[in-house]
């Protein structure tokens, strides 16, 4: 592939995908603008607001990916932090446990620092092994046992789901050198983000157009079998089409795409269940048209770790 422009040492593969993303954004902005003019509706307005937010999210993501890995790590760490911060008030934690909550926040920079300095073994064990014991112990030292089972389950879960999972995006920078693979960690990151993002959009689009039979009617009435199957299949095709960003062969890419799409759906469904239990529609109001951070990142936090391990497996097996 040939480079389009030469800036920040960006490689050709990444540049091509950035241009594809910009193309999709320009296309959808134009399409929804025309739709809103020709046939104004609530859906058209919602799509316009959503697309506007996609522009901002893509700009932040692309800039933080291409400039320097430090910026990428800081950006991803901020997202993990924002997820915790957004979910803790919803989960109705005991306000007297503020010190333990502060400890959970402190885990975020440590986890991303471990990723940045390439301490992969400790990275993999830090939250699910060490913090899994330390946090319940700190809760116990408060001397108050009423309702402690709830906190002991919630706080480590929150770390695994929203810090450990997400931080695997940063661990992509520690992927061992693969001969003949030029897109680099930025390429892999872009591949996953593109797939999960498009998976959400495609499941939404298939569901809106031909969706009839709900998958999980009591958890998330808007998710349909048609949306799920259509989304998974189109994401798999997309994964094959964009495999120049990865060291994967055609079947490996198809399998990875399939797994990422299914994991994205699972993350989305889990988040829906949590939100339904605490009685809110959206996890927050940070991103206009999308809701809170979790509403946008639920799929990413579930798909990041499986994606990392699949890539690692395929690239070390061949």
């Amino acid at each position, binding site marked *: 592939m040939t480079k389009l422009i030469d800036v920040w040492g960006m490689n050709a593969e990444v540049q091509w995908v950035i241009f594809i993303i910009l193309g999709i954004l320009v296309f959808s902005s134009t399409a929804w603008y025309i739709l809103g003019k020709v046939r104004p509706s609530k859906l058209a307005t919602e799509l316009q607001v959503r697309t506007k937010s996609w522009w901002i999210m893509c700009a932040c993501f692309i800039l933080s990916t291409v400039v320097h890995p430090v910026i990428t790590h800081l950006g991803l760490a901020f997202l993990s932090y924002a997820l915790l*911060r957004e979910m803790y008030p919803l989960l109705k934690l005991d306000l007297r446990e503020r010190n333990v*909550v502060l400890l959970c926040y402190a885990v975020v920079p440590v986890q991303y620092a471990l990723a940045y300095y390439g301490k992969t073994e400790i990275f993999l064990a830090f939250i699910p092994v060490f913090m899994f014991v330390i946090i319940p112990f700190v809760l116990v030292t408060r001397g108050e046992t009423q309702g402690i089972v709830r906190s002991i389950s919630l706080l480590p879960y929150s770390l695994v789901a929203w810090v450990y999972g997400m931080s695997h995006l940063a661990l992509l920078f520690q992927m061992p050198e693969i001969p003949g693979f030029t897109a680099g960690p930025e390429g892999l990151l872009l591949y996953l983000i593109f797939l999960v993002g498009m998976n959400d959009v495609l499941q939404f689009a298939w569901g809106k157009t031909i969706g009839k039979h709900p998958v999980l009617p009591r958890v998330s009435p808007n998710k349909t079998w048609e949306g799920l199957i259509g989304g998974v299949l189109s994401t798999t095709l997309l994964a094959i089409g964009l495999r120049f960003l990865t060291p994967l062969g055609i079947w490996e890419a198809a399998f990875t795409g399939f797994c990422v799409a299914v994991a994205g759906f699972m993350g989305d469904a889990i988040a829906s269940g949590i939100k339904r239990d605490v009685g809110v529609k959206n996890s927050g*109001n940070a991103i206009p048209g999308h809701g809170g951070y979790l509403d946008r990142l639920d799929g990413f936090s579930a798909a990041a770790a499986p994606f990392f391990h699949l890539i690692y497996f395929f690239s070390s097996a061949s």
Partner: protein
Amino acid sequence: MSNVNPSSALKPNSFVKRIMLVLLYKVFWRMIFGLVIGMKYIWADHVALKGPVIYIANHNSHLDAMALMTVVPSSRIHLTHSVAAQDFFGSGFKRWGMLHLVNAVLISRSRKASGEDPIEQLDAMLLAGRSLILFPEGTRGVPGSMGDFKRGVGHLASRHPGIPVVPIYLDGLYRNLPKGRNMIVPFGGTLLVGKPLVFSHEGVDEITNATQAAVESMALELKNANRLT
């Protein structure tokens, strides 16, 4: 205005203090609220207000005054004073911080204590073109719930028809810095700036009730916007 009460807060603010307040609130605290605490600002559409304004808000945390100062336009931040209780912030570092870092004005909560009517003191400030930040509940109260408004806001707004009252609803800041704690733990929050209310000849109670209703309806609106049906 030369016939006003020579209260300490009415001394013209120096240029240095103005710059300091802008940096402290429009840059530093705005970043703390936006990035660290994760507070979402939601503005009702309204034209920029010129001249004195009375900002009112519900009160649950010491962060409330800081949050409101980040909403005040930079051009008037040195002319905007939070109204705080003399008996709580009356001495030592607390007093110095309130007067110089928060740009507050300290009043006594009861008329008997000082012999001076606190409302008259605030009257003079509005006449001199200063804006006020009031917490009409008078105290931080029970976490997460709103008490009845005291009549001070009614007295002030009825004596100064034409000065707009901007209702502000603060949601969730009591989690970040609860009463009785001194460490901020980020838990998010929302700040809703409502449409300005302008009163002409309404009575004191009428104005007090209208302002309380405005803040309560904003609270309800925020709650319903994200409620599962």
